[in-house]
């Protein structure tokens, strides 16, 4: 039902196509690449041509192949960050509503602290401490981003706990299991799905930024951020080159954010339609009246 809503909109169709496309590239990128990403296959800094759609970099490697090959790590990085954030944030978020004031206070303060940390700088610091590994850096970023899941989970749980419809269910003798599975989970899952999609996009940016800075993936292995950094290095001689990795990053980030937005809209659609109709037929409040 929700997917239907997403598919009916043009943005939804585009976002879905892109997202699926990127996932496919992520898995099969290396196989799809026309040339080996590490092989010099033509003259360096060649402009886009029929044999090299995006041209070549300063070492003569096909840029398209490098982008395709690097897709997997970039996207995987995004997903990894989200998974870590999901697991670290969601459970405490839900528990903060049920486990009493002390836990609530402690977890809230902890999350406030975490969210205040600038994740890129912390990632760089972690790299300095633990060595130039990508996975540790991503896990740390996942933890730093987890407050988002905490807040969403907590918000849904909180509004459910105080809602009259939950009280109503309790009054006719519903068990906690019933209340959770019928009234709370169905609200939690869509909210978390939306957050997840948004976080994948954010994770993508993070890993691109990290590899742009040279953290994580060792050269000459390609990543989108890394390729962007490389191409920027010789932008004066090959001005078009940085455009290609940028477009991929932007498109992927957009696609996931758009999917998240549409999923959220799909969830609230019937009520929004109703509210709009109600507002159209009844007067809005006066603004600026003396």
């Amino acid at each position, binding site marked *: 039902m929700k997917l239907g809503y997403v598919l009916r909109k043009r943005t939804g169709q585009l976002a879905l196509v892109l997202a699926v496309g990127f996932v496919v590239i992520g898995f099969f990128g290396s196989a799809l690449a026309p040339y080996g990403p590490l092989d010099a296959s033509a003259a360096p800094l060649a402009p886009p041509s029929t044999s090299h759609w995006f041209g070549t970099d300063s070492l003569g490697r096909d840029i398209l192949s490098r982008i395709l090959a690097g897709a997997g790590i970039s996207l995987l990085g995004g997903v990894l960050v989200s998974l870590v954030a999901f697991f670290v944030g969601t459970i405490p978020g839900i528990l903060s509503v049920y486990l009493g004031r002390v836990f609530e206070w402690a977890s809230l303060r902890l999350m406030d602290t975490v969210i205040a940390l600038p994740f890129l700088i912390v990632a760089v610091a972690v790299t300095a401490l633990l060595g130039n590994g990508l996975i540790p850096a991503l896990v740390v970023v996942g933890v730093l981003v987890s407050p988002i899941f905490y807040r969403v989970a907590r918000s849904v749980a909180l509004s459910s706990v105080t*809602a*009259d*419809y939950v*009280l109503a269910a309790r009054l*006719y*003798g519903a068990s906690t299991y019933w209340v959770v599975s*019928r*009234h709370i989970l*169905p609200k939690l899952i869509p909210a978390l799905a939306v957050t997840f999609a948004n976080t994948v996009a954010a994770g993508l940016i993070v890993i691109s930024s990290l590899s742009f800075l040279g953290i994580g993936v060792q050269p000459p292995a390609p990543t989108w951020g890394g390729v962007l950094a490389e191409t920027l290095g010789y932008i004066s001689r090959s001005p078009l080159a940085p455009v290609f990795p940028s477009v991929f990053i932007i498109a992927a980030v957009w696609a996931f954010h758009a999917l998240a937005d549409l999923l959220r809209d799909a969830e609230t659609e019937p009520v929004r339609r*109703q509210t709009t109709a109600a507002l159209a037929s009844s007067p809005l409040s006066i603004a600026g009246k003396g």
Partner: protein
Amino acid sequence: MLEVKNVDVSYRSRRGRNDVLTDVSVTVGAGEAVAIIGESGSGKTTLARAILGVVKPRSGEILFEERDLVGLRGSERTAFRRSGQIDYVFQDTLQSLDPAVPVGDSVIEPVLVRSKTSRAAAVERGRELFDRFGLSQSLVDKRPAQLSGGQRQRVGLIRALIQRPKLLILDEPLSALDAANRASTIDLLTGLTGHGTALLLITHDIGSAAAITERTYVLWRGEIVEEADTAQLIRDPEHDYSKLLVGSAGSLLRHGSSKEARQALRRRLELT
């Protein structure tokens, strides 16, 4: 059938103890319709919550068919709630119906929770009640926000009645309704007592008490200040607050007290 005896409810805040209900006693007999009239701050919602076991009284007893309700432990209370002898209708249906669940499903939820009835049978009964209450079958799949206030109110009523409770507690059931819906809902409710369901109406609208109930308690600042047959209360209230209530109530006959009388009562009650 329902006996509330000398109930005190209070809660602690940083400023000390806050008495919400003091020495409240109310009885409802089988098949009787009784009203508790109170305005904001009177403690009427707390009284309902105490009867339903959501709030625990500091002292006093609450008995249903001679059985103590206050001392019920967790599983006993759940069992009692599952027996469906007492049901409750919320005032605000936008909050009391799950906004993400189609109303047809909300309505049969008590049946599914409480009994082993098949879903199909429950749905059938739900549809039957939709018909009886004048709701179109096309509404069954809609969400609460897509219904009008009057329709939602009836959905809330159906949910509470679907298992024929012995006692139905209603919190301001008529406040959101227009004249036509108000009339039909009142007819519906008076019909219920004819079938043996007892009603406890909690409201600030003495008019609805007049239309539905035989006896009325007046609750003011956590205390019962008067108890009388509803008609008697309206014709000849004794307590100053009852006089103010009756004199303030909406009436077309203009028989009620004058402005001056109301102002004098307010001064005596230190309300103004």
